[in-house]
Structure formats: structure tokens, C-alpha cells
């Protein structure tokens, strides 16, 4: 008997990669999964931060999918390396700051290195031709295979019959006749296949697997780069952009206003890196100040924070300004009215 062939599958936590794995498992292939963590993944984070989300049972979808499939899962931290992908995408961005094509090339390339090191035979993804405007088009799918270095070791079981045969098919490890020819944005074939496998619980990715496909998130990231005068970021930036209301009343500073208690607790952890404002005379949100503020700026900032406090109708609200070194001073202001907090200040 010939030895069992081994495949590494890219697992996002969504339905498509789950189906792709099932399809190749049915052909007797040993599959293990890999999940790449860029920092921008929708998974995890915000659940841990926002209080209202804490009540919901939280699961890491990639781990959950792997468990359903009965496969091992390797989670790889690519936060640092991913910066170059996001900052200098060769194929540019999608609708927002999502460099999907470069991202896919990078991830498949990493998977290619991995299978070589571990002696696996090929790579599986849940991609479907024509499903995503950027990375999953008929003309871009070969680009991913080629530039990742995976070439014909990259099998997409859900749409393989629309693509040239790959090595696993040509070698007879995989029966091409039992692969699929899905294409386009219609999700019905996937749902029918899921039903045939008895899979009825799965995450529904809305638009994409990461925050970079989110218009608001991308706007905040672009605003951060512009204000800094350089396109760079760290893990703290990634996190802080996911949290709170971001208001930039002047080009040189912005406010991150907690929207609820969980966010307030999270922002507390950054008080040694940022100046902050807390309300004293009334209940109100913790606010971080990113950037240097003059006395006038501080008054303006305090007026904005007061507008989001329980003293928004009061004649005067007292706040405490604490700088990053812990020095405190009191600020008393009249809260701004809603229309005074200009729409264009919201990043």
C-alpha cells in the first residue's frame, strides 16, 4: 500500500476552508491546519475587551473548526512580517486597506515553507474562483500560486475543476472527479455541500477575515499614518484602533474615548503610555490623548470628553488630566454640544 499523503490546509475559521478539508479528507489524505495571526484578525481580541461581548460564549473559530475536522492546528504569529505586506503591497489594496492578494501570496508562501520543512506533500485552501473581488478572481488565483512559490502544490478543492490540474491530481493522490467546480459569489453550493457533510454550525465571515476590510477601521489606520507622517504601526496601535471612539479635533492630537466599561478597563492599561482625561464631577468615559496638547487643546479635549459624560447637560464638568508620567491637574469646562463635536473629527 502506498503511504498516506499529507496536506497542510489554510484554516481561516470560516466555512470554505472547513469544506475544502473535508473534501480531501474523504480521499484519504492526512490533513493538518495552519492559521496565520496578522494582528488584524477579527478573532478574539474585541470579545475580550467589550463587556457586552464577554457574555457571549467566545470561541476561536480556527481552533473550533480544527476540532470539528479532527485535525491538528498550528497557529503562526506573523504580526511583524505582515507589516511589509500591509505597508508595501505589490498588488495594492482592495476596497479598504486590505492587501488581499499580497496577503494570500504571503500566507501560501509561508505554508509552502512549512510543508517543505515538515515533509508534507501539498497545500489546500478553501478559495473559490470569483468569490472575492481581489484575491479570488480567475486571473489572480494563478498569481497566488506562482508568486507564493507553491505553484502546482496548491490545491483548491472547491473550485479545482475550473483550474488546471495540480500535482496531487496529476499524480493520482487526489481524484479530480471528486473535486468541485464552484465559482462566483453564490454561497448556495457551499451550503449544500455543508449540509451533505452534516455541518450545520459555522462562522459566517462578513466580507473578509480581517479588520482591514472594514471601512471604519481602515479610515482610522489611514488617519494614524497621516498624523504620524509615517506609515508604521505596532501591536498597540492595532489594538487601540479596535477600541473606543476616535476623535481628532486637531491634526496633532486625537482622543480615544471609551464607549463602555470593558473598553475603559482596557484603556486603563495604556495610561503609562498616553496622557488621559477622566471626569471627576460626573460619571464619564476614560479617554486617552494621543499627541501633544497645549492648554487650549486640552480645554477643547476636555469639552469633548465632557460631552460624552453624564454631565453633558451641566454648565460645568470637572475633569482630571493625567500625563503619561502620572502628573495630574484639574480642568473645568463647559461640555461641547453635539453639533460642536464636528462630524469630520471622527476618524
Amino acid at each position, binding site marked *: 500500500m502506498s503511504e498516506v499523503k499529507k496536506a497542510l490546509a489554510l484554516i481561516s475559521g470560516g466555512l470554505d476552508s472547513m469544506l475544502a478539508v473535508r473534501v480531501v479528507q474523504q480521499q484519504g489524505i492526512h490533513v493538518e491546519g495552519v492559521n496565520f*495571526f496578522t494582528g488584524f*484578525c477579527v*478573532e*478574539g481580541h474585541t470579545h475580550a475587551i467589550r463587556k457586552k461581548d464577554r457574555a457571549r460564549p467566545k470561541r*476561536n473559530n480556527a*481552533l473550533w473548526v480544527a476540532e470539528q475536522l479532527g*485535525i491538528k*492546528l498550528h497557529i503562526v*504569529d506573523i504580526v511583524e512580517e505582515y507589516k511589509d505586506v500591509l505597508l508595501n503591497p505589490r498588488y495594492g489594496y482592495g476596497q479598504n486597506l486590505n492587501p488581499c492578494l499580497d496577503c494570500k501570496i504571503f500566507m501560501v508562501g509561508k505554508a509552502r515553507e512549512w510543508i517543505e520543512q515538515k515533509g508534507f506533500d501539498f497545500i489546500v485552501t478553501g478559495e473559490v474562483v470569483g468569490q472575492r473581488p481581489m484575491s479570488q478572481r480567475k486571473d489572480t488565483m494563478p498569481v497566488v500560486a506562482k508568486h507564493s512559490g507553491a505553484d502546482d502544490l496548491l490545491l483548491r478543492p472547491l473550485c479545482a475543476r475550473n483550474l488546471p490540474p495540480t500535482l496531487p491530481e496529476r499524480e493520482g493522490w487526489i481524484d479530480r472527479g471528486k473535486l468541485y467546480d464552484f465559482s462566483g459569489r453564490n454561497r448556495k453550493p457551499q451550503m449544500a455541500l455543508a449540509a451533505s457533510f452534516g455541518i450545520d454550525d459555522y462562522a459566517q465571515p462578513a466580507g473578509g477575515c480581517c479588520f482591514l476590510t472594514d471601512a471604519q477601521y481602515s479610515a482610522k489606520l489611514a488617519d494614524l499614518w497621516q498624523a504620524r507622517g509615517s506609515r508604521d504601526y505596532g501591536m498597540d496601535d492595532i489594538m487601540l484602533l479596535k477600541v473606543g471612539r476616535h476623535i481628532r479635533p486637531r491634526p496633532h492630537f486625537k482622543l480615544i474615548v471609551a464607549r463602555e466599561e470593558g473598553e475603559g478597563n482596557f484603556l486603563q*492599561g495604556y495610561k503609562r503610555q498616553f496622557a488621559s482625561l477622566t471626569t471627576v464631577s460626573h460619571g464619564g468615559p476614560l479617554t486617552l490623548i494621543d499627541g501633544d496638547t497645549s492648554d487650549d487643546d486640552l480645554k477643547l479635549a476636555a469639552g469633548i470628553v465632557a460631552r460624552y459624560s453624564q454631565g453633558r447637560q451641566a454648565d460645568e464638568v470637572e475633569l482630571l488630566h493625567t500625563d503619561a508620567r502620572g502628573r495630574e491637574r484639574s480642568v473645568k469646562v463647559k461640555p461641547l454640544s453635539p453639533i460642536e463635536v464636528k462630524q469630520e473629527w471622527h476618524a
Partner: protein
Amino acid sequence: MITEPEQLDARGLLCPMPVIRVQNRVEEMKSGERLRAICTDPGALNDIPAWCRINGHKVVSSEERQGEYVVVVEVGEA
């Protein structure tokens, strides 16, 4: 004989970072050895055991202690 577990400080990290740290440490350990991970993200109480189940490791204990979550993992057979 059970030796003292190794320690992993994953405090301040948000999921999935704690589970990634556990994974990377476990990769360097031998079967039967133990690792005690201390986390502050409550998600670790789900993620680390889930990761152990699918990768063939054992969760010896998992508990909350004053806002910290402590999970002890025993490395399984390779």
C-alpha cells in the same frame, strides 16, 4: 515522577497570543513535561484547552485566581 512545571507568563496578551506562546513552548518540551501558563485574557480558558485537545496534549488543571487564569498543560506524545 512529576517535575515542577515550567512557567509561561502570558499576562497582558490577548487571544490568540497566549495560545501561540503555549504552542511554541510546548514544541520545545518533551512528552510528559508540564507547562503552567498564566494569562489575563479569559479567552485563554477556552483556547488553550481547545488547542490541547486537537493537538494531543492534556490540560491538568485550569482555574481563575484573582483575575488571572492559570492553565497547566501536560505535553502529549509527539
